């Protein structure tokens, strides 16, 4: 049975009074890859960021409606945002490793969460790096600076850093858009592997990427969710003309 992990109901988002997301209702299943596609400015990244309250950091943002994760509204007043972001991790377009060693990049989060036992930290670091499919490439140089890694390796390190705090959901905002095809392929393979343990939501401009790795695809346009369906359906026979026009490149 497919379990629902995230669901929003009649969700609206305003930037300083201007509507950026309109009436978004969506159910995102657990341990699947869900892709958000749409032209620049359509609201897909804004919606992604609202799933772990990253928009709280922007002045003038107002949200209406429900954003439920495991049946709890994450915008309720009693929600601990730090705990929420542990549960809902995020990987960004540009890899952003700390100017520290590879080891310290991964151990940073667990340390902040109070884990100081060296053996325990070693295990967390190794597991996270293995889950992010980069362990074999860095295991002999864990003390080296993370900034010396290639772009693709840095991005996988950032994914490992996100996994180290044991999230349930991983949000990815164009995680491979700055990478070469080989590194992109590694990230895509990794995403498909990660869905065994995590619920993945990915924003991508690369439609072939959405088609290759996602189970479900949501198409956004002008702040609205136009169509949401199985990826196979969206890319072979979408219901809405706007979706068809966008994915076939006919959009004016």
């Amino acid at each position, binding site marked *: 049975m497919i379990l629902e992990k995230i669901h929003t109901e009649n969700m609206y988002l305003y930037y300083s009074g201007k509507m950026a997301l309109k009436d978004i209702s969506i159910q995102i299943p657990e341990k699947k890859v869900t892709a958000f596609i749409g032209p620049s400015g359509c609201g897909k990244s804004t919606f992604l960021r609202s799933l772990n309250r990253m928009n709280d950091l922007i002045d003038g943002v107002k949200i209406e409606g429900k954003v439920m994760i495991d049946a709890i509204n994450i915008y309720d007043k009693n929600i601990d945002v730090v705990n929420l972001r542990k549960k809902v991790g995020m990987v960004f377009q540009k890899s952003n490793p700390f100017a520290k060693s590879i080891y310290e990049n991964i151990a940073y989060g667990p340390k902040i969460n109070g884990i100081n036992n060296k053996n325990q930290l070693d295990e967390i670091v190794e597991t996270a790096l293995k889950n992010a499919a980069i362990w074999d490439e860095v295991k002999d140089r864990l003390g080296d600076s993370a900034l010396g890694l290639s772009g693709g390796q840095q991005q996988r390190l950032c994914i490992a850093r996100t996994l180290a705090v044991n999230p349930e959901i991983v949000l990815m905002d164009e995680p491979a858009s700055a990478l070469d095809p080989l590194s992109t392929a590694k990230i895509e393979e990794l995403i498909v592997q990660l869905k065994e343990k995590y619920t993945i939501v990915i924003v991508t401009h690369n439609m072939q990427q959405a088609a290759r790795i996602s189970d479900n695809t949501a198409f956004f346009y002008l702040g609205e969710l136009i169509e949401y369906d199985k990826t196979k359906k969206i890319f*072979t*026979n979408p219901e809405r003309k706007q*979706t068809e026009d966008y994915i076939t*490149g*006919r959009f004016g």
Partner: protein
Amino acid sequence: MENYRIFDSELDKLAHKVKQMCTQVNQQLIDVVIALKKGDLILANAVVKNDHAINNLDVKIDKLCQKIFALQQPVASDLRYIISALKINNDLERIGDHACNIAKRIEPLQDYQQLVEDLKIDSIGLKTTDLFGDVVELVNTHDLKFANQVMNKAELIKDECEQIGSSILSEMMHQSEVVVVAANILIIINLFERVASYSTNIAESIIFVVNGEIVKHKKHIENN
């Protein structure tokens, strides 16, 4: 507002070639049916010779589809269109082959024109060319309702071919002297039946282009 895409010129080129293929195959069918009716060996020979032009076009369409798949990575209606173009092209090429095979069997029938008429072979030939004329129109119009009409018409021809096939077998049993010629006629009937079957396939491909529905192997609903 729709953008013009570089891709569109490739799709236009593909559509043009598929229509060209339809026209050429249509002419081959018309010619072979005339040759069969009149026992015209010169025309039959021309049909055999013209088959290579259809084969050349078949290869060109295959290559163009391959190029579009590799370079444009089509999705949605574009994807369905190119998949269908490949399949329709294949069906057209087979129909072209069958026209050619029928043409090759006209000579042995030279002295049996009466039998050809009695068994309504020329009539089934005319019905098949009429059906294929509809197929050509369908490939141009992509009309779903018409696709169903084409499939119904093809079904009737296939049934008729089966009936004629039984009559021929009966003739063969009763008149041993006509066995050789009747065997040829049986093969020709079978080839017309195949043309009707490929026409059904093409109608099914058009339905797939229009609404993504895969109707092959499903008995279509009469009067749909």
